[in-house]
Structure formats: C-alpha cells, structure tokens
C-alpha cells in the first residue's frame, strides 16, 4: 500500500507538471479551431515560445530576479502571438490551405529559433537558465492526508495558472458575447456575417490567442523541464496538445482533462523504471500511448461530426 502511495506521490505531481504546457497549448488550439481555423502550427508556436522564454530568462535574470520566469513567459506569449499572425494572414486573408500554412509555421518556428540560437550563442543550444519556474506549497491544503502531498505540495506555479486558464477559457467561450461570436463564426460564418459580426476579425483574434497560449506552453515546458533550448527541446508537445484538443472534443475543460491524461502517460514513461510493477514494460509503449490513444479515440468513441462545421474554409464574402 505504502509503495503504491509512494509511487503516486511521484507520478501525480509529475503528470500535472507535464500536463501544464499541454493545457495552455491545447486551449490555444480550442480558440483557433472554434473560430474555424485549423492550427497544426501549434508545435512551431510552442518552439518559438520555448526559445523566447529561455533566451529572455538568460538575458534578464539579473534584472528581474525571482520574477524572471514569469516575465519570460509573458515575452514568449507576446512573440508567439505575433508569430501566429503569419498563420492568420495566410489562412484568413490569403485563403491558404490551413494545414499547409500550419506546416510552414512548424518548419519556420524551429528554423528561426535555431538560426537565432547559433547567431547568439555560436552553438546548437543555449546555456542553462538559473531562474526556473518556482514551486509552491499551498498552505493548509498541503496538510490534507494523501491528497495534500499529491496535489498541493511543491506544485509548479505554472500548473495552477494552466488550470485557471482552462476555467477562464470555458467562461469566455460559453458565457460571454465574444465566445458566442467565436462559436458562430466557426459553425456558420455567413450567418454571423449577416448579424453584423466581423468574421475575419474574430478569426484573427482567435488565431493570435492560440499563438499566445502556445507560446506560454512552450516557455513553461522549457523552463520546467529542459532549462535550455536546443533542436529537440519541443519534440511533439505541440502535436500532443493538438491531440488533447481533439480528444477533449474542442472543449476547454475536455482538453484540460486530455492533457492531464497525456501528462500522466509521459510521467509514467519517464519514471516507469523506478516503479516496481512497471519496470518490465518497455517505455516505448508509454511514449506511443498518447498518440495511439488519440487514433483509437478518433476511430472509436469520439465519432465524426464533432469539430466546428466551417473549419478549414476561408470565409469569402458573398459566396454561398
């Protein structure tokens, strides 16, 4: 019993830590796709966020002290949001194939980041940051038996933020005028247009929000786990976030749930050798798990008609 608890005390916090960047990014995906713009560029946007987060952290650690990781996250958000404008312009104004534009964003993100790293540092990866994302003990809650050590001891600040963002996203999408307009634009843009809604403006905003959130996701990941930036810092997390979004049926809370589950799979994969009854399971299965599960979910219980109806189509005024 106590070994199981001991394992859980390791696995659960690690799962949440792995999930946090996925939650940010997946919710970014929810905004973009709810507005009708496919965003498979999440990976590239995360790369950009990770790169900016690390570089900003390295350069300004002396200026901002303990606040450095948080301000780095803000900087990453800003830069990735601006970077995502490229995807917005291509897929909304230039009517590009949104999947192809997303591929371009992914290639461009890593290329720009590595190019800059080599330019700045003269080598393939950055130095290590000193100011990492801080961990907290949540007063009172940490003393709860069993649950306390699992959820409320040495929690990353970013994890709390991720869950807050998920709840906020739910509120925005389902309770506010902006959310209603966002959903209508992704379902039936012409109907929204006849109601005087600026379809493309909403879509631009949604894509930029997704860029910002993916940027946060990338910066959180890099400042939590790798602490430097190189070519493999972000290696599929963006696509995993995309999978979480689909798994969560384009719903912020669902996406958060899926991200937590994928985080759990990653945590297992990394620590399986230390877990008594898991040591014989080849870790490859755990690495593959999130991807395989997404395929199975798509094939099985999620069904067909769940994505926003107008997804992938540029809105052209006056065409039926």
């Amino acid at each position: 019993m106590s070994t199981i608890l001991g394992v859980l005390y390791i696995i659960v916090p690690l799962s949440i830590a792995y999930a946090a960047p996925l939650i940010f990014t997946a919710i970014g995906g929810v905004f973009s796709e709810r507005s009708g713009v496919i965003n498979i560029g999440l990976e590239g946007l995360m790369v950009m966020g990770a790169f900016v987060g690390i570089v900003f952290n390295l350069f300004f650690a002396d200026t901002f002290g303990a606040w450095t990781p948080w301000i780095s996250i803000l900087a990453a958000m800003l830069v990735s949001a601006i970077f995502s404008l490229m995807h917005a312009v291509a897929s909304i104004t230039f009517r590009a194939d949104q999947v192809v534009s997303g591929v371009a964003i992914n290639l461009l993100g890593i290329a720009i980041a590595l190019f800059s790293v080599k330019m700045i540092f003269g080598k393939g990866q950055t130095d290590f940051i000193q100011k990492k994302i801080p961990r907290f003990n949540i007063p009172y809650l940490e003393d709860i038996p069993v649950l306390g050590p699992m959820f409320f001891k040495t929690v990353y600040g970013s994890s709390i933020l991720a869950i807050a963002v998920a709840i906020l996203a739910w509120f925005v999408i389902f309770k506010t005028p902006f959310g209603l307009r966002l959903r209508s634009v992704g379902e039936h843009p012409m109907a929204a247009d006849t109601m005087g809604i600026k379809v493309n403006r909403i879509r631009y905003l949604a894509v930029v929000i997704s860029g910002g959130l993916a940027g946060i996701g990338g910066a959180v990941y890099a400042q939590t786990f790798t602490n430097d930036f190189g070519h493999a810092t972000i290696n599929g997390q963006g696509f995993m976030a995309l999978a979480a979004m689909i798994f969560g049926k384009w719903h912020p809370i669902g996406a958060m749930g899926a991200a937590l589950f994928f985080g759990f799979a990653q945590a297992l994969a990394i620590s399986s050798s230390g877990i008594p009854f898991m040591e014989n399971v080849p870790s490859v299965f755990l690495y593959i798990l999130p991807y395989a599960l997404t395929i199975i979910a798509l094939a099985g219980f999620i069904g067909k008609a769940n994505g926003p109806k107008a997804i992938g189509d540029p809105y052209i005024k006056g065409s039926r």
Partner: protein
Amino acid sequence: MDYVIEMLNIQKKFGTFYANNNITLQLKKGEIHALLGENGAGKSTLMNVLFGLYQPDGGEIKVNGKSVNITDPNVANNLGIGMVHQHFMLVENLTVTENIILGSEPTKMGMINIKDSAKEVAEISKLYGLNVDPYAKIEDISVGMQQRVEILKTLYRGAEILIFDEPTASLTPQEIDELIRIMHRLIEEGKSIILITHKLQEIMSVSDRVTVIRKGEGIGTVTTAESNPEELATLMVGRQVTFKTEKGPSHPTEEILKIQDLVVTDYRGIEKVKKLNLSVRRGEIVGLAGIDGNGQSELIEAITGLRKVKSGEIILGDKDVTNKKPRQITETGLGHIPQDRHKHGLILDFSVGYNAALQSYYQKPYSSNGLMNYKEVTKHANKLIEDFDVRTQGEHELARALSGGNQQKLIIGREVDRNPDLLIAALPTRGLDVGAIEFIHKRLIEQRDQGKAVLLISFELDEVMNVSDQIAVIYDGAIVDTVIPAETTEQELGLFMAGHNKNEIVEGSEGAVLKEGEDDHV
C-alpha cells in the same frame, strides 16, 4: 409619394458580367412588394446590395427619402432593414435565443444575459403570433419554425422593412398559408415587405405591386391587381411562355419498377422511408410529389443502391436489386439524374469528356486491361455534346465552367445514352431557366414515348402536374395516394402532401372536392 426604400438605377458588376444593371425598385410603406425574376436574373444580388452584403457599382439607395450608403449588414440593421434568407442564416448548434441576440448580446457583468433575452424573444414571438420556443436548439426544430426564427431575428433588431428571399421554397401549402397570415400581421403592425420569388401564384395572392427583372435588367413595376400571370410570365422570360408542356397521352405497358414495403433509415438509424409501395410502368412518367424531407432522398438512394435497405424489396425489370451495389443496379437498366448535380452528378474538376464517361469508363471501348482509352472517351463525349446540345468550348473544358442548364444536359445525355429501362429524374430542373426547363421536360417525355419508364421527383407542384402521367404523393416516408393529374387539383395535392388522406379531406371539407372512381391506383 412616400417610399420607405428606393433603389434607383442600381448596378452591380462581377468582373465583366453585370448581375444588376439599371434596376429600380421603390417600396411603399405598408405594402408587400414582389420582386420577380427567373433563377439567375439577379434578384438575390439586388437584395444583397440592399442588405449591405455587396456594394453597388452604380445607382443610389434612399431610405425614407434620405440617400444612404449601406456598407455592411450592421448599417442595414440600423436602418431598419431585415432579411429572411432563403438558406436560413442560423447556427444549428445554438439555441433560438442565442441565434437571435448574436451580434448584439445584452450582458450583465460581462456575461450574456440569456434569461432576459429569452423573455424578450418570447414577447415578440407572442406579439406576431410566431409561437417559437426561445430555448430550443435550431437543429431540433422544424423548417417552418426555423423560418419564424429568421423573422424574429429581424424583428428583434427593430426591422421596419423585411426582405423575404424565396420564403416558400421548402414549405407545405399549409405552412405557406401560415406564412402569408404572418406577413399580413406584419403589415398590420406597420411593417413593409419585399418578397423575392419566381412563383407567379404567390405573387398574385399576396403582393400589392411587382417589380420584374430579367437577366440583370430592370423591366418595370406593375400593380398586381391590374396584371395577370400570363403578362407577368412574359415580362419575366421576355417571350410568350406556354404553361402546358406539349405531350400526347401515355401508353403504359409492363411494370418496370416495383417497390414493396420498403423501409430505409437515415444515418442516425431513424426510419425515413416507411413501408413504401410504388410501381412504375414502361411508357409512363410517374411524378413523386412531396415536401422536401419526406423520404424522397432516402427512397432514391435506396433504389439506386447508394443507401442500404432495411427491409422490403425493390424489383427492377425482373431482377431483385434490393441492396445491390450501385453499378449492378445501373447495369440492370437504371439511369439516374441525381437531385444535386454538383454533389453526385458531376465531378466539377473533371473535363466534360471525363464526366461523360463517368458511368461507362470501366467498359470497352473506354478501357481495357486496366488501361484507359481516352481517345474513345473523347469521341463519345463529342457525340453527347452534339446530340444533347451541350453548350461548351469542347470536351476538354472543365464541367465547373458550364452553366447549370448545360451541366444538366450533359448528365441527361450521359444517362439517356446508356438506354436504361427506367430513368430516375430527381429535381431535374432545379435552379434552371425556362428554356432549359422546357428542353429537359421534352427529353423526359421523349423517353416515355420510346417506351421507357420515368420516375420524376419534384418539389414543384406545377412541374409534377404538367409532366407526369400519374402522381404519387409522398408524406412521411410513405405514399399517401396516387392520382391522375387531370383528375386532381393543387389544393388536393397540397393536402396529401401535408399527410391528409382522402377520408379526412371529405370530412374536413377544406375545399378539395374528390371525384369518384380514382381511389384504385396505388
């Protein structure tokens, strides 16, 4: 004279093509003003200009005497102009209230105030007798109700002028009556209405004045009471129109299609065709009349093998084709003009030639040993183009570039050329102009006269009445009754289409008189 809306000499160009050229329309306060024109005459373009979806290239728009510049639908809304779209502009997975308040949502502390909005929607609904549930989801309510939500949307925004774009297209005759009542109620409350339509009877029965446009040009405005359908038709088409299609009596012989107790479900597993029986003989045209959505699509798909049959059987000639593959059924002797020519009938990004081979590409001489013989494909296509008067730059032109009428001719050519025993023509004239409609009706009758069987599916009552030798009325997945055109009236068909059977009609005495001896068809 008090005009609430004046559209003066409106011009709208798309590229070099004038969709609207010098059209003038003046709407008086409190009138129902019809805008009449054929498909593609430019009615929708004109109204989209008025509603701010398009910007005119010339002319002037005045509202209440003041010149205005309607740059987008918001401006139109603020000027009190509301549009009830033909293809409803409703977001299906949102509620009635959400659809109505979309774009001008009342809020309370940043949140949408859905409660008060729903209350307001309910009040307006009551005032105009619309009877709409504010909390229902659009995807769960009927077509008629959806249309009333569209009307509510405009009223909620304080519209004084309502544009109805082909509002009766998918309604039953009874629902149409209800709509006309609502329109009169709107007029009583001081609203003015523009009614876009190409149906002459509708115009005669509800409108005060009519503005006619033809091929983008304004023809003029007449007072309905001083005109008649013949005059309006001539104005609309630009020449004398014969309402009756020329055809001799039919000489039906042996039965070609026999459907027994057919049950077909849709993709959700809901029964759409329910124990349906139908028979079509050589040498006759059977018209299947009914409102859209009563199982016609599922029936056709079942006959042609595109959809699984749950129970019952379909006999074509002397073969049981129930649940056979489309190709097997086609080869048994079926030609099929599908109801959506863009979705099923053609591959728009293929050339005319490739499309002409769509049903026979796998046979000799078009292919052999797994290889195509495109020389033969081209030869065959040129023959069809010639025989069926398909106006095209040549067989290499993309099907997309053809006009609707020519696309339909190509499909009919392809299907008829294979010499099928039974030809299914589903909405063969939808969206076409009068010339193309006449051509297609002639071809169908020609098939009949050559001893082929034709099953014609149509939502247009006059088409069914004019072309068919027998009319089977479908309602809720079953045939309500089968009648002979000469022995029935549109009123009676309308009641059948709404699901009333004969006994009810007699008892209800809703104006339809039944003749004796016609109840033994089925």
